[in-house]
């Protein structure tokens, strides 16, 4: 059966759902039903697409019936379909989490009715970026998800979020401008924006022109993916948003940038002269990111820094440009989407249970809520790369690819990734010790001192000083999605064999280029 009719659905469905949810704005329940149904359908569609892309090769849909170089094509190959499936699963979990969290806790003025439509539009943008077979359509996908993310990040318009949002919006605008300029130059140089056609035409360009185009595209995507030195915006803008919003941003938005880097580097610029530059960027991203995480006292900020740091692993795999390197990078992306989202969701749970995300004020959570401790511990160790979790397998795959490469710089990168992994473990252990194991700051009777002592009282009894979130018991609806993501993370260890098989095949496709190009342009490039 030809599954290509399904290819546009992951873009169309959430957009239709968003319209419907907006029209149903008066009924919160109807909105919930619409968004959950849409995302559940998308999970099924993405799974079917992945199965077909793996069995029958890339599934292509020419939108409007115009063949490839003229019309816009949507392509689901192994990489796209895999990314799509993981993203949609994660998005569904986050949505269920946010249903239960109830954005009400962020104040009565929060415009609830726009949350669901915006979330669906964000998912549509992510799907469009993954499926796009056309550089301009990729730009449109980016803009859809960015516009939605602006709204989600500044939800409620509080002073904190406007401050964080203005940095985020200005940086995103700068990256969009670079991308659009690169697009104009690509079109001027080659006369096409179809990825499959570009693959052939860019090879014929003078190397200087191709290098300039590559650099501009890389800059635009590196800002989105938060690759050092273009990563400083991320730890400042993510933590102030509501927990589910931060979680979905952390899981999906940077990974769309990484996906764009993988796609353009393999399809458009194989034999890249910039792989050394990328390796250095990967090393600096890893090390500087994790040093930032070690220095943090706030859990959400710490997680934002580990997010930046671990982007370095993916760039490392891409820069190696070998089958093993790419396969490791793809596996790592999949692993990291799930784990990082999971950790941010758990951070939201900690904020709810302990009343704060500041490590200085948390304590004794392990006794207070063993379930929460388990929910934090497993993904934290997974992120740090403790065997047998998927973080270990992903890092191992990348390091093996680095050693196989044999270059001196590749060995430096292998060393850097070991150090980063250890420092991640240190940061996670610090968070674990201070939030979970350390006894709640002593509450000796009568010793409650003057006002400076306020912060050291256990927070459950503390009138929140700077955190307006009351500490309350966990709800199954919030812990459930986090637990599901934890299980998905563990499943990536259990099914690591098949998953690595899939990423190996995806990497081989990417390196070969021909399957993608022939699927989009059956008659060869005109």
């Amino acid at each position, binding site marked *: 059966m030809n599954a290509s009719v399904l290819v546009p659905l992951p873009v169309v469905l959430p957009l239709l759902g968003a319209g419907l949810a907006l029209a149903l704005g008066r009924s919160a329940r109807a909105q919930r039903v619409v968004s959950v149904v849409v995302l559940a359908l998308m999970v099924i569609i993405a799974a079917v697409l992945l199965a077909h892309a793996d069995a029958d090769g890339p599934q292509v849909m020419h939108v409007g019936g115009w063949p490839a170089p003229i019309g816009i094509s949507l392509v689901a190959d192994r990489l796209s379909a895999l990314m799509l499936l993981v993203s949609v699963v994660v998005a569904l979990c986050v949505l269920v989490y946010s249903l239960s969290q109830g954005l009400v806790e962020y104040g009565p003025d929060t415009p609830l009715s726009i949350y669901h439509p915006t979330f669906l539009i964000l998912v549509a943008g992510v799907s469009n970026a993954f499926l796009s077979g056309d550089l301009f359509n990729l730009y449109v996908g980016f803009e859809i998800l960015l516009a939605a993310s602006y709204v989600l990040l500044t939800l409620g318009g509080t002073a904190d979020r406007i401050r964080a949002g203005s940095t985020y919006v200005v940086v995103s605008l700068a990256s969009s401008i670079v991308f659009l300029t690169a697009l104009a130059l690509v079109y001027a140089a080659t006369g096409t924006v179809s990825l499959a056609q570009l693959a052939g035409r860019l090879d014929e360009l003078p190397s200087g022109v191709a290098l300039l185009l590559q650099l501009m595209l890389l800059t635009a995507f590196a800002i989105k993916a938060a690759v050092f030195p273009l990563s400083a915006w991320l730890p400042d803008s993510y933590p102030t948003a509501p927990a589910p919003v931060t979680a979905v941003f952390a899981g999906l938005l940077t990974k769309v940038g990484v996906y764009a880097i993988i796609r353009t580097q393999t399809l458009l610029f194989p034999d890249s002269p910039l792989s050394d530059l990328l390796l250095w960027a990967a090393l600096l991203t890893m090390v500087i990111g994790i040093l930032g995480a070690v220095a943090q006292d*706030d859990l959400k900020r710490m997680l934002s820094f580990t997010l930046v740091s671990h982007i370095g692993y993916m760039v490392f795999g891409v820069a190696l440009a070998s089958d093993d390197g790419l396969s490791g990078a793809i596996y790592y992306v999949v692993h990291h989407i799930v784990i990082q989202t999971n950790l941010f969701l758990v951070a939201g749970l900690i904020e709810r249970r302990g009343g704060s995300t500041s490590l200085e004020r948390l304590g004794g959570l392990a006794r207070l809520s063993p379930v929460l401790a388990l929910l934090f511990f497993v993904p934290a160790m997974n992120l740090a790369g403790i065997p047998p979790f998927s973080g270990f397998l992903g890092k191992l795959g990348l390091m093996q690819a680095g050693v196989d490469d044999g270059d001196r710089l590749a060995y430096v990168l292998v060393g850097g990734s070991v150090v980063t992994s250890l420092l991640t473990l240190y940061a996670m252990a610090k968070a674990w010790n201070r939030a979970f194991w350390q006894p709640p700051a002593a509450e000796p009777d009568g010793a409650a001192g003057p006002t400076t002592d306020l*912060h050291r009282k256990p927070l459950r009894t503390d009138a929140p000083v700077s955190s307006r979130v009351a500490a309350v018991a966990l709800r199954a609806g919030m812990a459930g999605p986090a637990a599901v993501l934890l299980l998905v993370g563990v499943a990536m260890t259990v099914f690591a064999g098949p998953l690595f098989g899939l990423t190996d095949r995806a990497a081989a496709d990417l390196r070969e280029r021909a399957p993608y190009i022939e699927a989009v342009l059956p008659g060869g490039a005109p």
Partner: protein
Amino acid sequence: MSANLVLVVVVGVLFAAGVYLLLERSLTRVLVGVILIGNGVNTLFMVASGPAGRAPIVGQGDVDDMSDPLPQALVLTAIVITLGVTAFLLAMAYRAWQLNGHDDVQDDVEDAAIRRRAERDEVSSSYDDSAGGTMDEEGSDDAAESSEAAAAGVGPEGERR
């Protein structure tokens, strides 16, 4: 392909002015900068599309005389996107002005906390000087507590929600 010099110069001027404004702190100026650069990019697409020609409608003349329709379609899309982003940025600048009385992009809270600490010559609350300058990952033992209390009282980075 021969490029149109006038258009190229216009693109350069728009970009230069736009970048200058983009580097300002006020969101309104950033917005004007974004609009200028947006128009610069759109003009760049016109440069990329080659010489102007007749309307590209099939059957209305020789294909060689027609202008290239694709960049025009791309520019239309880009204009719509710029419109949406402009609307959002205006709303955000207005909200920032409502809240703060100005619409400047503000410093990172962490930067502000570090500057405040440097002025007061404080160390981080989790920094334990008594154990020979080594870091203590627990950060809560007795030696650290006095400085922690002091730091907490004057509001380190934890003051943020």
